């Protein structure tokens, strides 16, 4: 059982980090970014190229992933989402744009990096094995890094000037604008940060699970689930959602395995029931 909980915690940390970027973009712009998973994949491939192929230090690779994705995110906001949001009658219309960019990224990634699963050399070798818990060291490192990133992000949002402006924006766009927050600028920064988070976590996880060009869509969907569990557009919610989903999978796969192929059926059905009871997730802002 210790092992199951350890698995769940590790999975939760990595899920929470994936969900953070998605929820940030949603909070600021009410955009459900279907391309989040593709950004993650792109970040993974950049780290794969820089660290795995060119042999540069892992930190450099991670930085390259983050910076590239931040630039892409900023451009996407400025030239695509801003235009469409301004001109469309219903803000859900951005979902089509997001889906189209997701397909576009899929196509580009497939053309650039091919159809194969890719992986990089381990960053740390060896396996921790004590007190009934088995955990490879590289997972421990990645898990710890994930928690550091999450903490840094929360602190940044809480105390920095940019973070405060973005929180104001998320709470009430119009009021923030009246108070002199430059909405366009912070939307762009927020989108860039969300994309950067996706890129960094992609780069981080390529050391454990590798990356391939087709997983973007499924990752996006998984990230949506976590965000919904915790409550859309709330940083705390994304973190909670990530850990809850991680724990549910880990425990569910162990406890329900005797009953046949129903583990995920139960997890998803439970999720539907949960959302019916709590229509805004754990701590989400009400919609409408």
């Amino acid at each position: 059982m210790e092992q199951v909980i350890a698995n769940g915690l590790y999975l939760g940390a990595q899920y929470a980090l994936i969900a953070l970027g998605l929820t940030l973009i949603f909070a600021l712009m009410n955009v459900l970014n279907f391309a989040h998973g593709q950004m993650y994949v792109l970040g993974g491939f950049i780290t794969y190229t820089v660290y795995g192929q060119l042999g540069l230090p892992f930190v450099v690779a991670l930085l390259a992933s983050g910076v590239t994705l931040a630039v892409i995110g900023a451009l996407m906001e400025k030239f695509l989402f801003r235009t469409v949001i301004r001109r469309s009658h219903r803000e859900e219309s951005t979902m089509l744009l997001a889906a189209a960019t997701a397909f576009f990224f899929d196509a580009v990634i497939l053309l650039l990096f091919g159809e194969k699963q890719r992986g990089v050399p381990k960053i740390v070798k060896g396996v921790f094995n004590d007190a009934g818990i088995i955990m490879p060291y590289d997972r421990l490192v990645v898990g710890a890094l994930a928690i550091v990133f999450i903490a840094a992000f929360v602190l940044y949002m809480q105390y920095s000037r940019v973070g405060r402006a973005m929180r104001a924006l998320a709470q009430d766009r119009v009021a923030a604008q009246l108070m002199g927050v430059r909405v366009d600028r912070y939307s762009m920064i927020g989108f860039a940060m969300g994309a950067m988070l996706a890129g960094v976590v992609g780069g981080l996880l390529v050391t454990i699970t590798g990356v391939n060009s087709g997983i973007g869509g499924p990752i996006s969907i998984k990230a949506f689930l976590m965000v919904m569990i915790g409550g859309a557009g709330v940083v705390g919610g994304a973190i909670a959602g990530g850990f809850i989903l991680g724990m549910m999978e880990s425990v569910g796969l162990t406890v329900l395995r005797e009953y046949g192929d129903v583990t995920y059926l139960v997890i998803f059905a439970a999720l539907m029931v949960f959302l019916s009871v709590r229509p805004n997730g754990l701590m989400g802002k009400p919609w409408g």
Partner: protein
Amino acid sequence: MINRRSTLKSMALGAVSTLAIAAVGISYAQAENKELKIGFVGVTSGPAAAWGTSNVRSMQTRAAWINETGGVKIGNDTYNVDIVTFDDQKDPKRAIAGMEKMAQEGVHYVVGPNVDDGAAAVRPVAEANGIIYFPYAFPKALYQKPASNAVLGMIANYQSGPAIYKYLKENKGVKKIAFVAANESDPLSQRDGGVEAAKALGLEIVAQNDTYQNDTRDFTPVLTPIVALKPDLLVLSGVAPANAPLLIRAARELGYEGLISTETAQDAKVLEEGAGEYANGFISVGGASTPEIASDTMKEFVTRYTKMFGEYNDESNTKVYALEYILDTLKANPAAINDVAEFKKTMDTFSAPNPFLKGDAKLGYVGTTSFGQKRQLSVPMVVNEYKDGAFQTLFVGSVD
């Protein structure tokens, strides 16, 4: 408004010029010889892109090679081979559209689809339009009467599975076996077949209900309870090449010491990058490229493939055969070129040398035992073991 109009205009221009380029490309190939169109309907985008891509590329490589060396002589005419491809996005509804497209293009021989549901969905179209197709899907209903237009392109799991388990039982002392599969049609069907085979061999099945979502990236939670049961053999039923190294690595890191095997084809490079030395000893089904058995033709095929697409994919080893079979059968009976009834007649007696294997191996149609009619390509059942970045042949079997 001007802006918008010019955008639309340039879009239209772009589309037209792309089509023009495509059209020029096709007419260029037509220059001298007659043209023989062979179709491909399968998945070349999305999460399962690797299956179809390795498939279509092996066809394109072979076709380019044949055309470069003057084409293929069938009857009195010499043909250039043109591969017509359709990406079905792993959607059975699209696969039907693809098969319709093939019928429209006058194609009578199609390789694919790559999955069970697609292969079942295209059957009505193929039978109505006189198309023989070569799916990489295992359901027996596709190949048994009254179905008659599908020919299984590789060794099915219910043929290789029993052979592998038997070999491991006798040579490696395997007694306890565990299965894990993705919760999708193809892997689950393969798992059920594997469980049956293991039962028949008298192996103790310690786990058979464990499933995972195909988008799983971290397999530790899935494997934790299975590893605790200490099986001697862990079977990754119908595992996607992308997931295989992740499963292997997770199992080994959890301290699993038994054997791991699968009945699908894998890629050595993917295993090396994803699992490193943990993948040593991993058993999978291969085709023809291991050094022990590959002929010079096969070696040249690999070289040409690598040159054409930058990197070889070992999954293609099991997929070089379909095109070769189509062409060789047509050579044996030129009347079949536009008439699949003739092709079916020839299938019962067809025999030709296998160019990809050393020695005097033969190409021929089999499947009588499994399907009651000859609706399977006879390809060698090569069982491989992964070792330090390459596959080694463990044993070679055959199917009748």
